[in-house]
């Protein structure tokens, strides 16, 4: 069963998707449903014997192109809607082992082009209001399939987190006549203490208001709303900066750093949103090598995060993690692969 239930206290939709309880859970490598289908082997999600990058409709989607009837009837107080939308799984590589961090910059660049095309194509669907590209990495995040992959949710509404960011950006623009994100970029560049990495087109920082100890935001220096607005050069620069940030995460403690990577573009509902500014956010759950930050009472019950660390100190740690960068975000030594 799958439906949207309105949460009247928070004024947002909750997706129920009961069939997801049965989704594939950490299968062995030789039964990976995301690997190509070997000749004579069991059929995977990809019928071809090989592929480069693939995106497919999730077998256990939270949202459906042709949604089923809701399990319950809603009411005026608690409306219910069909869970219309699209859920895709993006397979980064046909190789089972490895992570986005291991991939060459050239491949990450190709993935950015795929993400861009998916964003563009899904945005055209008239029932889609927001295209959300993300990656959950690591068992501690709750990943159920190890094969390197990400997901795309094309929602029939603007999600609450994005609504809040839009509202903040609009208020700031009305009060100051400038883009909130552009002003934050200048704030961080002028300060320098929270800069992790940067290049000609993008800045990566542990934000002043980080909620996770090693949270990183990647923001384009040019004011733009979505991946589709990036030039070819900017896409290349994004691939290079992603590689640097991902390497730093893994080199911090010599572990494959779990994280949630989320992209925040403008909505796809046909309105302009000129005051919004595309950015990417990383939420690694680790607060030390061996300890996790949990979303406990204050975070989950009151919506107020408690960060046990200082953003400036965590940014310095990340700058010192290879490839080493300075307070302008520049690489101390060129990245060999680049």
């Amino acid at each position, binding site marked *: 069963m799958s439906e949207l239930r309105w949460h009247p206290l928070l004024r947002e939709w909750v997706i129920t998707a009961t069939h997801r309880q049965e989704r594939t859970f950490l299968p062995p490598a030789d039964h990976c449903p995301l690997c190509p289908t070997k000749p004579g082997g069991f059929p995977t*999600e*990809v*019928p*071809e014997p090989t*592929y*480069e*990058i*693939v*995106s*497919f*409709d999730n*077998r256990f989607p939270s949202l459906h192109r042709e949604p089923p009837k809701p399990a319950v009837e809603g009411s005026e107080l608690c409306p219910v809607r069909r869970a219309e939308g699209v859920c895709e799984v993006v397979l980064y590589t046909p190789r089972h082992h490895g992570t986005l961090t291991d991939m060459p910059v050239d491949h990450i*660049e*190709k993935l950015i*082009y*795929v993400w*861009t*095309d*998916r964003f563009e*194509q899904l945005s*055209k669907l008239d029932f889609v209001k927001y295209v959300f590209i993300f990656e959950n990495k690591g068992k501690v995040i709750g990943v159920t399939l190890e094969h390197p992959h990400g997901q795309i949710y094309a929602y029939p509404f603007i999600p609450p987190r994005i609504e809040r960011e839009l509202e903040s950006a609009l208020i700031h623009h009305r009060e100051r006549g400038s883009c909130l994100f552009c002003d934050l970029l200048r704030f961080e560049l002028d300060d320098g203490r929270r800069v992790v990495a940067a290049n000609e087109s993008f800045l990566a920082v542990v934000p002043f208001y980080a909620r996770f100890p090693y949270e990183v935001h990647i923001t384009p220096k040019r004011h733009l709303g979505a991946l589709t607005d990036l030039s*070819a050069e900017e896409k*290349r620069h994004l691939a290079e900066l992603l590689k640097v940030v991902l390497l730093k995460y893994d080199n911090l403690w010599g572990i494959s750093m779990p994280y949630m990577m989320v992209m925040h573009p403008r909505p796809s509902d046909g309105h302009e949103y000129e005051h919004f500014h595309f950015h990417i956010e990383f939420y690694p759950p680790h607060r030390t090598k061996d300890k996790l930050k949990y979303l406990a009472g204050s975070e989950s019950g009151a919506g107020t995060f408690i960060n046990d660390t200082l953003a400036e100190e965590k940014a310095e740690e990340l700058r010192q993690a290879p490839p080493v960068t300075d307070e302008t975000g520049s690489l101390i030594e060129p990245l060999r692969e680049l």
Partner: protein
Amino acid sequence: MSENEAKGKVERVARTDRWVMYRRCEVKEDGRRIIYYSFEDVKKADTKQSLDLEEPGV
């Protein structure tokens, strides 16, 4: 041409100075869509196009 209309066809959807990106949409037995992205060296792709050869399989 939209994705929906182009099922099974290989479409050239992006290009850099190094490669061309193609997209092919298929429908699986259970009705779910799968989209294959492939990449070809730009010189090879341009040569094929100028000779009006069939697009590569993906």
